[in-house]
Protein backbone atom coordinates (compact mmCIF):
# COMPACT_ATOMS: atom_id res chain seq x y z
CA UNK A 1 0.00 0.00 0.00
CA UNK A 2 1.30 3.44 -0.89
CA UNK A 3 1.54 6.22 1.60
CA UNK A 4 -1.07 8.94 1.44
CA UNK A 5 -1.97 9.56 -2.18
CA UNK A 6 -1.63 13.24 -2.84
CA UNK A 7 -4.58 14.67 -4.65
CA UNK A 8 -4.75 18.36 -5.40
CA UNK A 9 -7.85 20.05 -4.06
CA UNK A 10 -8.25 21.78 -7.39
CA UNK A 11 -8.00 19.15 -10.08
CA UNK A 12 -6.20 19.94 -13.32
CA UNK A 13 -8.87 18.05 -15.26
CA UNK A 14 -11.69 19.78 -17.09
CA UNK A 15 -15.37 19.00 -17.08
CA UNK A 16 -16.37 19.43 -13.45
CA UNK A 17 -19.25 21.80 -14.17
CA UNK A 18 -20.92 19.86 -17.01
CA UNK A 19 -20.58 16.41 -15.44
CA UNK A 20 -21.78 17.46 -12.00
CA UNK A 21 -24.56 19.49 -13.61
CA UNK A 22 -25.70 16.52 -15.70
CA UNK A 23 -25.54 14.25 -12.66
CA UNK A 24 -27.63 16.58 -10.51
CA UNK A 25 -30.13 17.21 -13.31
CA UNK A 26 -30.66 13.51 -14.02
CA UNK A 27 -30.78 12.71 -10.29
CA UNK A 28 -33.36 15.42 -9.66
CA UNK A 29 -35.60 14.56 -12.60
CA UNK A 30 -35.58 10.78 -12.20
CA UNK A 31 -35.15 10.27 -8.45
CA UNK A 32 -35.52 13.29 -6.20
CA UNK A 33 -38.56 15.09 -7.65
CA UNK A 34 -40.58 11.84 -8.02
CA UNK A 35 -39.74 10.83 -4.43
CA UNK A 36 -40.72 14.35 -3.40
CA UNK A 37 -44.17 13.66 -4.86
CA UNK A 38 -44.54 10.89 -2.29
CA UNK A 39 -43.90 13.32 0.55
CA UNK A 40 -46.17 15.94 -1.06
CA UNK A 41 -49.04 13.47 -1.40
CA UNK A 42 -48.81 12.25 2.18
CA UNK A 43 -48.76 15.85 3.41
CA UNK A 44 -52.28 16.22 2.02
CA UNK A 45 -53.41 13.76 4.70
CA UNK A 46 -54.09 14.96 8.25
CA UNK A 47 -52.12 13.30 11.02
CA UNK A 48 -55.18 11.25 12.06
CA UNK A 49 -55.87 10.11 8.51
CA UNK A 50 -52.23 9.16 8.02
CA UNK A 51 -52.17 7.25 11.29
CA UNK A 52 -55.44 5.49 10.47
CA UNK A 53 -54.17 4.52 7.02
CA UNK A 54 -50.99 2.89 8.31
CA UNK A 55 -52.36 1.20 11.43
CA UNK A 56 -55.51 -0.54 10.16
CA UNK A 57 -55.42 -4.28 11.00
CA UNK A 58 -55.04 -5.24 7.34
CA UNK A 59 -52.04 -2.94 6.91
CA UNK A 60 -50.42 -4.10 10.14
CA UNK A 61 -50.89 -7.73 9.07
CA UNK A 62 -49.23 -6.92 5.73
CA UNK A 63 -46.25 -5.24 7.42
CA UNK A 64 -45.89 -8.16 9.83
CA UNK A 65 -45.95 -10.63 6.94
CA UNK A 66 -43.49 -8.65 4.79
CA UNK A 67 -40.99 -8.12 7.58
CA UNK A 68 -41.43 -11.58 9.10
CA UNK A 69 -40.94 -13.51 5.86
CA UNK A 70 -38.05 -11.23 4.80
CA UNK A 71 -36.37 -11.82 8.15
CA UNK A 72 -36.83 -15.61 7.95
CA UNK A 73 -35.54 -15.68 4.35
CA UNK A 74 -32.53 -13.51 5.19
CA UNK A 75 -31.77 -15.82 8.13
CA UNK A 76 -31.92 -18.91 5.92
CA UNK A 77 -29.72 -17.15 3.37
CA UNK A 78 -27.18 -16.17 6.02
CA UNK A 79 -26.76 -19.87 6.89
CA UNK A 80 -26.88 -21.42 3.41
CA UNK A 81 -25.21 -18.45 1.75
CA UNK A 82 -22.27 -18.82 4.12
CA UNK A 83 -22.01 -22.54 3.33
CA UNK A 84 -22.20 -21.84 -0.43
CA UNK A 85 -19.59 -19.07 -0.21
CA UNK A 86 -17.30 -21.30 1.91
CA UNK A 87 -17.59 -24.22 -0.48
CA UNK A 88 -16.99 -22.01 -3.54
CA UNK A 89 -13.88 -20.38 -2.03
CA UNK A 90 -12.29 -23.32 -0.23
CA UNK A 91 -13.06 -26.44 -2.28
CA UNK A 92 -12.75 -27.50 -5.90
CA UNK A 93 -15.28 -29.95 -7.30
CA UNK A 94 -16.87 -30.80 -10.66
CA UNK A 95 -19.28 -28.04 -11.66
CA UNK A 96 -17.55 -25.45 -9.51
CA UNK A 97 -17.44 -22.77 -12.21
CA UNK A 98 -21.09 -23.29 -13.15
CA UNK A 99 -22.20 -23.19 -9.52
CA UNK A 100 -20.27 -19.97 -8.97
CA UNK A 101 -21.77 -18.29 -12.04
CA UNK A 102 -25.31 -19.49 -11.21
CA UNK A 103 -25.27 -17.75 -7.83
CA UNK A 104 -26.02 -14.52 -9.71
CA UNK A 105 -29.09 -16.00 -11.43
CA UNK A 106 -31.55 -14.22 -9.07
CA UNK A 107 -29.99 -10.88 -10.08
CA UNK A 108 -30.42 -11.68 -13.76
CA UNK A 109 -33.72 -13.57 -13.90
CA UNK A 110 -36.75 -11.25 -14.10
CA UNK A 111 -38.74 -11.47 -10.88
CA UNK A 112 -42.01 -12.35 -12.64
CA UNK A 113 -40.33 -15.37 -14.25
CA UNK A 114 -38.98 -16.47 -10.87
CA UNK A 115 -42.45 -15.99 -9.40
CA UNK A 116 -44.39 -18.15 -11.86
CA UNK A 117 -41.67 -20.81 -11.92
CA UNK A 118 -41.43 -21.22 -8.16
CA UNK A 119 -45.23 -21.33 -8.00
CA UNK A 120 -45.36 -24.03 -10.66
CA UNK A 121 -42.68 -26.06 -8.84
CA UNK A 122 -44.29 -25.78 -5.42
CA UNK A 123 -47.99 -26.05 -6.31
CA UNK A 124 -49.68 -29.32 -5.32
CA UNK A 125 -49.07 -30.87 -8.73
CA UNK A 126 -45.60 -29.35 -9.18
CA UNK A 127 -42.24 -31.14 -9.26
CA UNK A 128 -41.52 -30.35 -5.59
CA UNK A 129 -45.05 -29.68 -4.37
CA UNK A 130 -46.25 -33.20 -5.31
CA UNK A 131 -43.52 -34.63 -3.03
CA UNK A 132 -44.46 -32.39 -0.13
CA UNK A 133 -48.23 -32.84 -0.49
CA UNK A 134 -48.32 -36.41 1.02
CA UNK A 135 -46.28 -35.09 3.96
CA UNK A 136 -48.97 -32.49 4.60
CA UNK A 137 -46.67 -29.60 3.74
CA UNK A 138 -48.20 -26.88 1.60
CA UNK A 139 -45.78 -24.26 0.35
CA UNK A 140 -47.47 -22.37 -2.49
CA UNK A 141 -50.05 -19.79 -1.37
CA UNK A 142 -48.76 -19.76 2.24
CA UNK A 143 -46.24 -17.57 4.11
CA UNK A 144 -43.78 -20.44 3.62
CA UNK A 145 -44.06 -19.96 -0.14
CA UNK A 146 -43.35 -16.23 0.24
CA UNK A 147 -40.27 -17.11 2.29
CA UNK A 148 -39.05 -19.52 -0.40
CA UNK A 149 -39.37 -16.80 -3.06
CA UNK A 150 -37.46 -14.36 -0.84
CA UNK A 151 -34.71 -16.93 -0.22
CA UNK A 152 -34.31 -17.18 -4.00
CA UNK A 153 -34.14 -13.39 -4.38
CA UNK A 154 -31.77 -12.80 -1.46
CA UNK A 155 -29.20 -15.59 -1.91
CA UNK A 156 -26.65 -13.71 -4.07
CA UNK A 157 -26.51 -10.80 -1.63
CA UNK A 158 -25.11 -13.03 1.12
CA UNK A 159 -22.81 -15.13 -1.08
CA UNK A 160 -21.35 -12.14 -2.93
CA UNK A 161 -20.82 -10.21 0.33
CA UNK A 162 -19.03 -13.06 2.10
CA UNK A 163 -17.04 -14.53 -0.83
CA UNK A 164 -14.45 -11.73 -1.31
CA UNK A 165 -13.75 -11.55 2.43
CA UNK A 166 -13.23 -15.32 2.63
CA UNK A 167 -10.88 -15.12 -0.35
CA UNK A 168 -8.78 -12.38 1.23
CA UNK A 169 -8.46 -14.04 4.64
CA UNK A 170 -4.89 -14.34 5.76
CA UNK A 171 -3.84 -18.02 5.85
CA UNK A 172 -1.36 -17.29 8.64
CA UNK A 173 -4.18 -16.66 11.12
CA UNK A 174 -5.55 -20.15 10.66
CA UNK A 175 -2.12 -21.74 10.68
CA UNK A 176 -1.26 -19.88 13.88
CA UNK A 177 -4.51 -21.07 15.50
CA UNK A 178 -3.81 -24.65 14.45
CA UNK A 179 -0.20 -24.55 15.62
CA UNK A 180 -1.39 -23.28 19.01
CA UNK A 181 -3.53 -26.39 19.29
CA UNK A 182 -6.98 -25.14 18.26
CA UNK A 183 -9.30 -27.68 16.69
CA UNK A 184 -10.67 -26.90 13.22
CA UNK A 185 -14.06 -26.00 14.70
CA UNK A 186 -12.46 -23.74 17.32
CA UNK A 187 -10.48 -22.01 14.59
CA UNK A 188 -13.65 -21.46 12.61
CA UNK A 189 -15.63 -20.10 15.55
CA UNK A 190 -12.92 -18.00 17.20
CA UNK A 191 -10.84 -16.86 14.21
CA UNK A 192 -12.73 -17.16 10.93
CA UNK A 193 -16.28 -16.33 11.96
CA UNK A 194 -15.35 -13.03 13.67
CA UNK A 195 -13.45 -12.04 10.53
CA UNK A 196 -16.37 -12.69 8.17
CA UNK A 197 -19.12 -11.53 10.54
CA UNK A 198 -19.29 -7.92 9.25
CA UNK A 199 -19.62 -9.12 5.65
CA UNK A 200 -22.15 -11.78 6.64
CA UNK A 201 -24.21 -9.18 8.51
CA UNK A 202 -24.06 -6.84 5.52
CA UNK A 203 -25.26 -9.61 3.21
CA UNK A 204 -28.04 -10.47 5.66
CA UNK A 205 -29.16 -6.82 5.82
CA UNK A 206 -29.07 -6.44 2.02
CA UNK A 207 -31.12 -9.62 1.56
CA UNK A 208 -33.56 -8.46 4.24
CA UNK A 209 -33.97 -4.98 2.71
CA UNK A 210 -34.55 -6.48 -0.74
CA UNK A 211 -37.06 -8.99 0.66
CA UNK A 212 -39.17 -6.37 2.42
CA UNK A 213 -39.86 -4.51 -0.82
CA UNK A 214 -39.93 -7.48 -3.20
CA UNK A 215 -43.04 -7.78 -5.35
CA UNK A 216 -42.70 -9.69 -8.63
CA UNK A 217 -41.42 -13.01 -7.36
CA UNK A 218 -43.79 -13.04 -4.39
CA UNK A 219 -47.08 -11.95 -5.87
CA UNK A 220 -47.62 -15.20 -7.78
CA UNK A 221 -46.75 -17.61 -4.98
CA UNK A 222 -48.37 -15.74 -2.09
CA UNK A 223 -52.05 -16.32 -2.85
CA UNK A 224 -52.73 -12.70 -1.85
CA UNK A 225 -55.37 -13.33 0.86
CA UNK A 226 -55.95 -10.16 2.94
CA UNK A 227 -54.74 -10.57 6.55
CA UNK A 228 -53.07 -13.90 5.68
CA UNK A 229 -50.79 -13.81 2.66
CA UNK A 230 -50.97 -10.20 1.51
CA UNK A 231 -47.55 -8.50 1.52
CA UNK A 232 -47.20 -4.74 2.03
CA UNK A 233 -46.15 -3.91 -1.57
CA UNK A 234 -49.22 -5.77 -2.87
CA UNK A 235 -51.44 -3.78 -0.51
CA UNK A 236 -50.05 -0.57 -2.03
CA UNK A 237 -50.98 -1.83 -5.49
CA UNK A 238 -54.47 -2.82 -4.27
CA UNK A 239 -55.06 0.63 -2.77
CA UNK A 240 -53.89 2.23 -6.01
CA UNK A 241 -56.24 0.12 -8.07
CA UNK A 242 -59.09 1.29 -5.82
CA UNK A 243 -57.95 4.89 -6.48
CA UNK A 244 -57.13 5.35 -2.78
CA UNK A 245 -53.97 7.22 -3.65
CA UNK A 246 -53.49 8.84 -0.24
CA UNK A 247 -53.77 5.54 1.63
CA UNK A 248 -51.35 3.89 -0.82
CA UNK A 249 -48.93 6.78 -0.31
CA UNK A 250 -49.10 6.57 3.48
CA UNK A 251 -48.28 2.85 3.45
CA UNK A 252 -45.48 3.49 0.95
CA UNK A 253 -44.01 6.32 3.00
CA UNK A 254 -43.74 4.14 6.10
CA UNK A 255 -42.06 1.40 4.04
CA UNK A 256 -39.71 3.93 2.47
CA UNK A 257 -38.68 5.31 5.87
CA UNK A 258 -37.90 1.81 7.12
CA UNK A 259 -35.94 1.05 3.93
CA UNK A 260 -33.92 4.25 4.36
CA UNK A 261 -33.14 3.33 7.95
CA UNK A 262 -31.99 -0.08 6.67
CA UNK A 263 -29.86 1.59 3.98
CA UNK A 264 -28.15 3.74 6.61
CA UNK A 265 -27.57 0.66 8.76
CA UNK A 266 -26.09 -1.19 5.76
CA UNK A 267 -23.74 1.72 4.98
CA UNK A 268 -22.63 1.67 8.61
CA UNK A 269 -22.10 -2.10 8.42
CA UNK A 270 -20.05 -1.78 5.24
CA UNK A 271 -17.85 0.88 6.85
CA UNK A 272 -17.38 -1.51 9.79
CA UNK A 273 -16.52 -4.35 7.41
CA UNK A 274 -14.00 -2.19 5.52
CA UNK A 275 -12.32 -1.13 8.75
CA UNK A 276 -12.11 -4.78 9.79
CA UNK A 277 -10.55 -5.75 6.48
CA UNK A 278 -8.10 -2.86 6.56
CA UNK A 279 -7.09 -3.60 10.14
Amino acid sequence: MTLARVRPRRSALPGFGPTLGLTLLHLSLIVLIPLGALVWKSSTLSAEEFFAAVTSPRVLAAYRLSFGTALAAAGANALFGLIVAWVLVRYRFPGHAVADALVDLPFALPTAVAGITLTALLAKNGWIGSWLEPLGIQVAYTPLGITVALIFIGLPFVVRSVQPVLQDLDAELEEAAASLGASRWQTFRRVLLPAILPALTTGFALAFARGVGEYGSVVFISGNMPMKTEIAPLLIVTRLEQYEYAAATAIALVMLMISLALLLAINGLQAWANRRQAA
Partner: protein
Amino acid sequence: MSTADWTLRSFAEPPPALAAARTEPAWVRVTLIGVALCFLGTFLILPLAAVFVHALQEGWDVYVASITEPYALAAIRLTLLVAAICVPLNAAFGLAAAWAITRFEFRSKGVLVSLIDLPFAVSPVISGLIFVLLFGLQGLLGPWLREHDVKIIFAVPGIVLATLFVTFPFVARELIPLMEEQGADEETAAVSLGASGWQTFWRVTLPNVRFGLLYGMVLLNARAMGEFGAVSVVSGHIRGQTNTMPLHVEILYNEYQTAAAFAVASLLAGLAVVTLILKRLIEWRAGRRGGVV
Protein backbone atom coordinates in the same frame (compact mmCIF):
# COMPACT_ATOMS: atom_id res chain seq x y z
CA MET B 1 -8.96 -42.58 -7.51
CA SER B 2 -10.61 -42.07 -4.13
CA THR B 3 -13.82 -40.11 -4.01
CA ALA B 4 -12.23 -37.46 -1.82
CA ASP B 5 -9.53 -36.72 -4.37
CA TRP B 6 -11.34 -33.90 -6.13
CA THR B 7 -12.23 -32.21 -2.85
CA LEU B 8 -8.73 -32.45 -1.48
CA ARG B 9 -7.10 -29.83 -3.60
CA SER B 10 -7.52 -26.62 -1.73
CA PHE B 11 -7.33 -23.27 -3.44
CA ALA B 12 -3.68 -22.33 -3.16
CA GLU B 13 -1.99 -25.62 -2.34
CA PRO B 14 0.44 -24.59 0.43
CA PRO B 15 3.02 -27.08 1.80
CA PRO B 16 1.37 -30.26 3.19
CA ALA B 17 1.94 -29.54 6.89
CA LEU B 18 0.38 -26.10 6.64
CA ALA B 19 -2.35 -27.26 4.28
CA ALA B 20 -3.65 -29.54 7.02
CA ALA B 21 -4.17 -26.49 9.21
CA ARG B 22 -6.48 -24.94 6.61
CA THR B 23 -8.65 -27.88 5.59
CA GLU B 24 -11.30 -30.00 7.20
CA PRO B 25 -11.71 -33.77 7.46
CA ALA B 26 -12.93 -35.31 4.18
CA TRP B 27 -16.42 -36.08 5.53
CA VAL B 28 -16.92 -32.42 6.48
CA ARG B 29 -15.85 -31.27 3.03
CA VAL B 30 -18.11 -33.75 1.27
CA THR B 31 -21.05 -32.85 3.52
CA LEU B 32 -20.62 -29.12 3.00
CA ILE B 33 -20.28 -29.49 -0.76
CA GLY B 34 -23.35 -31.74 -0.73
CA VAL B 35 -25.41 -29.23 1.25
CA ALA B 36 -24.31 -26.34 -0.98
CA LEU B 37 -25.03 -28.22 -4.21
CA CYS B 38 -28.43 -29.45 -2.97
CA PHE B 39 -29.32 -25.90 -1.99
CA LEU B 40 -28.19 -24.41 -5.31
CA GLY B 41 -29.83 -27.27 -7.20
CA THR B 42 -33.19 -26.78 -5.52
CA PHE B 43 -33.27 -23.00 -5.51
CA LEU B 44 -31.49 -22.14 -8.77
CA ILE B 45 -31.04 -25.03 -11.21
CA LEU B 46 -34.47 -26.61 -10.76
CA PRO B 47 -36.38 -23.33 -11.38
CA LEU B 48 -34.21 -22.49 -14.40
CA ALA B 49 -34.80 -25.94 -15.89
CA ALA B 50 -38.51 -25.76 -15.06
CA VAL B 51 -38.97 -22.58 -17.14
CA PHE B 52 -37.82 -24.35 -20.31
CA VAL B 53 -39.60 -27.64 -19.58
CA HIS B 54 -42.92 -25.89 -18.92
CA ALA B 55 -42.42 -23.71 -22.00
CA LEU B 56 -42.18 -26.79 -24.20
CA GLN B 57 -44.80 -28.90 -22.40
CA GLU B 58 -47.35 -28.52 -25.20
CA GLY B 59 -44.86 -28.96 -27.97
CA TRP B 60 -42.69 -26.90 -30.26
CA ASP B 61 -45.59 -25.56 -32.35
CA VAL B 62 -47.38 -24.07 -29.36
CA TYR B 63 -44.07 -22.62 -28.20
CA VAL B 64 -43.38 -20.91 -31.51
CA ALA B 65 -46.99 -19.71 -31.81
CA SER B 66 -46.85 -18.25 -28.28
CA ILE B 67 -43.83 -16.11 -28.96
CA THR B 68 -44.82 -15.01 -32.46
CA GLU B 69 -48.45 -13.99 -31.89
CA PRO B 70 -49.00 -10.22 -32.34
CA TYR B 71 -49.37 -9.34 -28.64
CA ALA B 72 -46.21 -11.24 -27.74
CA LEU B 73 -44.30 -9.53 -30.54
CA ALA B 74 -45.61 -6.14 -29.42
CA ALA B 75 -44.44 -6.91 -25.87
CA ILE B 76 -41.00 -7.93 -27.13
CA ARG B 77 -40.75 -4.74 -29.22
CA LEU B 78 -41.76 -2.55 -26.25
CA THR B 79 -39.28 -4.26 -23.93
CA LEU B 80 -36.47 -3.75 -26.46
CA LEU B 81 -37.50 -0.12 -26.95
CA VAL B 82 -37.50 0.61 -23.20
CA ALA B 83 -34.07 -1.00 -22.79
CA ALA B 84 -32.75 0.88 -25.84
CA ILE B 85 -33.74 4.17 -24.18
CA CYS B 86 -32.76 3.39 -20.58
CA VAL B 87 -29.39 1.70 -21.09
CA PRO B 88 -27.63 4.57 -22.94
CA LEU B 89 -29.24 7.29 -20.79
CA ASN B 90 -28.26 5.74 -17.47
CA ALA B 91 -24.85 4.71 -18.82
CA ALA B 92 -24.13 8.31 -19.87
CA PHE B 93 -25.32 9.50 -16.49
CA GLY B 94 -23.14 6.92 -14.75
CA LEU B 95 -20.06 8.08 -16.65
CA ALA B 96 -20.76 11.74 -15.87
CA ALA B 97 -21.44 11.00 -12.20
CA ALA B 98 -18.30 8.88 -11.84
CA TRP B 99 -16.17 11.59 -13.52
CA ALA B 100 -17.52 14.35 -11.27
CA ILE B 101 -17.27 12.25 -8.10
CA THR B 102 -13.89 10.60 -8.58
CA ARG B 103 -11.96 13.40 -10.33
CA PHE B 104 -12.94 16.37 -8.17
CA GLU B 105 -13.29 17.25 -4.51
CA PHE B 106 -16.44 18.99 -3.42
CA ARG B 107 -18.62 19.24 -0.35
CA SER B 108 -21.40 16.73 0.40
CA LYS B 109 -19.90 14.20 -1.99
CA GLY B 110 -20.93 11.41 0.38
CA VAL B 111 -24.53 12.58 0.29
CA LEU B 112 -24.49 12.55 -3.52
CA VAL B 113 -23.14 8.99 -3.59
CA SER B 114 -25.85 7.87 -1.15
CA LEU B 115 -28.56 9.57 -3.21
CA ILE B 116 -27.37 7.75 -6.33
CA ASP B 117 -27.78 4.45 -4.45
CA LEU B 118 -31.24 5.41 -3.22
CA PRO B 119 -33.32 3.62 -5.92
CA PHE B 120 -31.89 0.25 -4.77
CA ALA B 121 -33.48 0.81 -1.36
CA VAL B 122 -36.93 1.60 -2.75
CA SER B 123 -39.49 -1.16 -3.30
CA PRO B 124 -40.28 -1.56 -7.03
CA VAL B 125 -43.94 -0.87 -6.31
CA ILE B 126 -43.06 2.47 -4.69
CA SER B 127 -40.82 3.25 -7.68
CA GLY B 128 -43.91 3.04 -9.86
CA LEU B 129 -46.19 4.77 -7.37
CA ILE B 130 -44.13 7.97 -7.27
CA PHE B 131 -44.62 8.50 -11.00
CA VAL B 132 -48.37 7.90 -10.67
CA LEU B 133 -48.43 10.55 -7.92
CA LEU B 134 -46.55 12.94 -10.17
CA PHE B 135 -48.14 12.35 -13.58
CA GLY B 136 -51.36 10.38 -12.91
CA LEU B 137 -54.82 11.94 -13.35
CA GLN B 138 -54.99 12.76 -9.63
CA GLY B 139 -51.30 13.60 -9.58
CA LEU B 140 -49.40 16.82 -9.07
CA LEU B 141 -49.03 17.51 -12.79
CA GLY B 142 -52.08 15.44 -13.85
CA PRO B 143 -54.49 18.31 -14.63
CA TRP B 144 -51.86 20.21 -16.66
CA LEU B 145 -50.89 17.11 -18.64
CA ARG B 146 -54.55 16.39 -19.36
CA GLU B 147 -55.13 19.93 -20.65
CA HIS B 148 -52.21 19.56 -23.00
CA ASP B 149 -53.21 16.03 -23.98
CA VAL B 150 -49.94 14.43 -22.85
CA LYS B 151 -50.17 10.88 -21.59
CA ILE B 152 -47.39 9.59 -19.34
CA ILE B 153 -49.04 7.16 -16.96
CA PHE B 154 -50.61 4.10 -18.66
CA ALA B 155 -48.39 4.92 -21.63
CA VAL B 156 -44.85 4.27 -22.82
CA PRO B 157 -43.23 7.40 -21.24
CA GLY B 158 -44.32 6.24 -17.76
CA ILE B 159 -42.80 2.81 -18.36
CA VAL B 160 -39.54 4.41 -19.48
CA LEU B 161 -39.46 6.75 -16.44
CA ALA B 162 -40.13 3.93 -13.95
CA THR B 163 -37.44 1.79 -15.61
CA LEU B 164 -34.97 4.70 -15.56
CA PHE B 165 -35.60 5.01 -11.84
CA VAL B 166 -35.05 1.36 -10.92
CA THR B 167 -31.94 1.03 -13.13
CA PHE B 168 -30.52 4.41 -12.11
CA PRO B 169 -27.51 3.31 -9.96
CA PHE B 170 -26.14 0.34 -11.96
CA VAL B 171 -23.39 1.97 -14.06
CA ALA B 172 -22.46 4.72 -11.57
CA ARG B 173 -22.04 2.13 -8.81
CA GLU B 174 -19.75 0.07 -10.99
CA LEU B 175 -17.61 2.99 -12.21
CA ILE B 176 -17.17 5.07 -9.04
CA PRO B 177 -15.03 2.52 -7.13
CA LEU B 178 -13.19 1.54 -10.33
CA MET B 179 -12.23 5.11 -11.30
CA GLU B 180 -11.42 5.94 -7.67
CA GLU B 181 -8.97 3.05 -7.64
CA GLN B 182 -7.37 3.96 -10.98
CA GLY B 183 -6.76 7.54 -9.92
CA ALA B 184 -6.46 10.58 -12.16
CA ASP B 185 -2.74 10.36 -12.96
CA GLU B 186 -3.10 9.19 -16.56
CA GLU B 187 -5.77 11.75 -17.34
CA THR B 188 -3.80 14.55 -15.70
CA ALA B 189 -0.78 13.54 -17.80
CA ALA B 190 -2.88 13.59 -20.98
CA VAL B 191 -4.27 17.04 -20.21
CA SER B 192 -0.85 18.44 -19.29
CA LEU B 193 0.48 17.17 -22.64
CA GLY B 194 -2.15 19.23 -24.37
CA ALA B 195 -5.07 16.83 -24.88
CA SER B 196 -8.52 18.39 -24.76
CA GLY B 197 -11.12 17.18 -22.26
CA TRP B 198 -12.92 15.09 -24.88
CA GLN B 199 -9.68 13.62 -26.22
CA THR B 200 -8.71 12.63 -22.68
CA PHE B 201 -12.10 11.04 -22.13
CA TRP B 202 -12.11 9.06 -25.40
CA ARG B 203 -8.44 8.08 -25.45
CA VAL B 204 -7.65 7.55 -21.76
CA THR B 205 -10.69 7.27 -19.49
CA LEU B 206 -13.01 5.22 -21.69
CA PRO B 207 -10.42 2.53 -22.59
CA ASN B 208 -9.48 2.25 -18.90
CA VAL B 209 -13.04 1.75 -17.67
CA ARG B 210 -14.47 -0.13 -20.66
CA PHE B 211 -14.95 -3.42 -18.82
CA GLY B 212 -16.52 -1.77 -15.79
CA LEU B 213 -18.82 0.21 -18.06
CA LEU B 214 -19.79 -2.87 -20.07
CA TYR B 215 -20.36 -4.85 -16.87
CA GLY B 216 -22.68 -2.18 -15.49
CA MET B 217 -24.54 -1.95 -18.80
CA VAL B 218 -25.10 -5.71 -19.02
CA LEU B 219 -26.66 -5.76 -15.54
CA LEU B 220 -28.58 -2.56 -16.26
CA ASN B 221 -29.97 -4.10 -19.45
CA ALA B 222 -31.09 -7.27 -17.64
CA ARG B 223 -32.94 -5.25 -15.03
CA ALA B 224 -34.45 -2.87 -17.61
CA MET B 225 -35.85 -5.77 -19.65
CA GLY B 226 -37.00 -7.75 -16.63
CA GLU B 227 -38.47 -5.08 -14.35
CA PHE B 228 -41.93 -6.04 -13.19
CA GLY B 229 -43.17 -4.23 -10.06
CA ALA B 230 -42.46 -0.63 -11.01
CA VAL B 231 -43.59 -1.09 -14.59
CA SER B 232 -46.78 -2.92 -13.63
CA VAL B 233 -47.91 0.05 -11.51
CA VAL B 234 -47.52 2.62 -14.30
CA SER B 235 -48.32 0.54 -17.39
CA GLY B 236 -52.08 0.00 -17.28
CA HIS B 237 -51.53 -3.41 -18.93
CA ILE B 238 -52.93 -2.44 -22.32
CA ARG B 239 -52.19 -5.34 -24.64
CA GLY B 240 -50.26 -4.47 -27.73
CA GLN B 241 -49.52 -1.00 -26.36
CA THR B 242 -48.17 -0.86 -22.80
CA ASN B 243 -47.45 -4.52 -22.10
CA THR B 244 -43.78 -5.34 -21.62
CA MET B 245 -42.60 -8.97 -21.71
CA PRO B 246 -42.77 -9.54 -17.92
CA LEU B 247 -46.29 -8.04 -17.85
CA HIS B 248 -47.30 -10.21 -20.79
CA VAL B 249 -46.07 -13.26 -18.86
CA GLU B 250 -48.26 -12.22 -15.92
CA ILE B 251 -51.38 -11.79 -18.06
CA LEU B 252 -50.95 -15.16 -19.79
CA TYR B 253 -50.27 -16.88 -16.48
CA ASN B 254 -53.34 -15.38 -14.83
CA GLU B 255 -55.43 -16.51 -17.83
CA TYR B 256 -54.20 -20.08 -17.26
CA GLN B 257 -52.32 -20.09 -20.58
CA THR B 258 -49.45 -21.71 -18.75
CA ALA B 259 -47.48 -22.99 -21.75
CA ALA B 260 -47.69 -19.59 -23.47
CA ALA B 261 -46.71 -17.77 -20.26
CA PHE B 262 -43.65 -19.99 -19.84
CA ALA B 263 -42.79 -19.68 -23.54
CA VAL B 264 -42.45 -15.89 -23.19
CA ALA B 265 -40.80 -16.40 -19.79
CA SER B 266 -38.24 -18.71 -21.43
CA LEU B 267 -37.08 -15.81 -23.62
CA LEU B 268 -36.46 -13.78 -20.46
CA ALA B 269 -34.74 -16.75 -18.81
CA GLY B 270 -32.56 -17.02 -21.92
CA LEU B 271 -31.71 -13.36 -21.48
CA ALA B 272 -30.73 -14.11 -17.87
CA VAL B 273 -28.44 -16.95 -18.96
CA VAL B 274 -26.81 -14.75 -21.62
CA THR B 275 -26.38 -12.02 -18.98
CA LEU B 276 -24.64 -14.44 -16.61
CA ILE B 277 -22.32 -15.65 -19.37
CA LEU B 278 -21.44 -12.10 -20.47
CA LYS B 279 -20.88 -11.13 -16.83
CA ARG B 280 -18.45 -14.03 -16.40
CA LEU B 281 -16.66 -13.24 -19.65
CA ILE B 282 -16.17 -9.61 -18.64
CA GLU B 283 -14.96 -10.61 -15.17
CA TRP B 284 -12.53 -13.02 -16.79
CA ARG B 285 -11.24 -10.50 -19.35
CA ALA B 286 -10.94 -7.73 -16.77
CA GLY B 287 -9.36 -10.08 -14.24
CA ARG B 288 -11.77 -9.06 -11.58
CA ARG B 289 -14.37 -10.80 -9.48
CA GLY B 290 -17.99 -9.95 -9.03
CA GLY B 291 -19.49 -8.15 -6.12
CA VAL B 292 -22.93 -7.37 -4.82
CA VAL B 293 -24.84 -5.47 -7.47
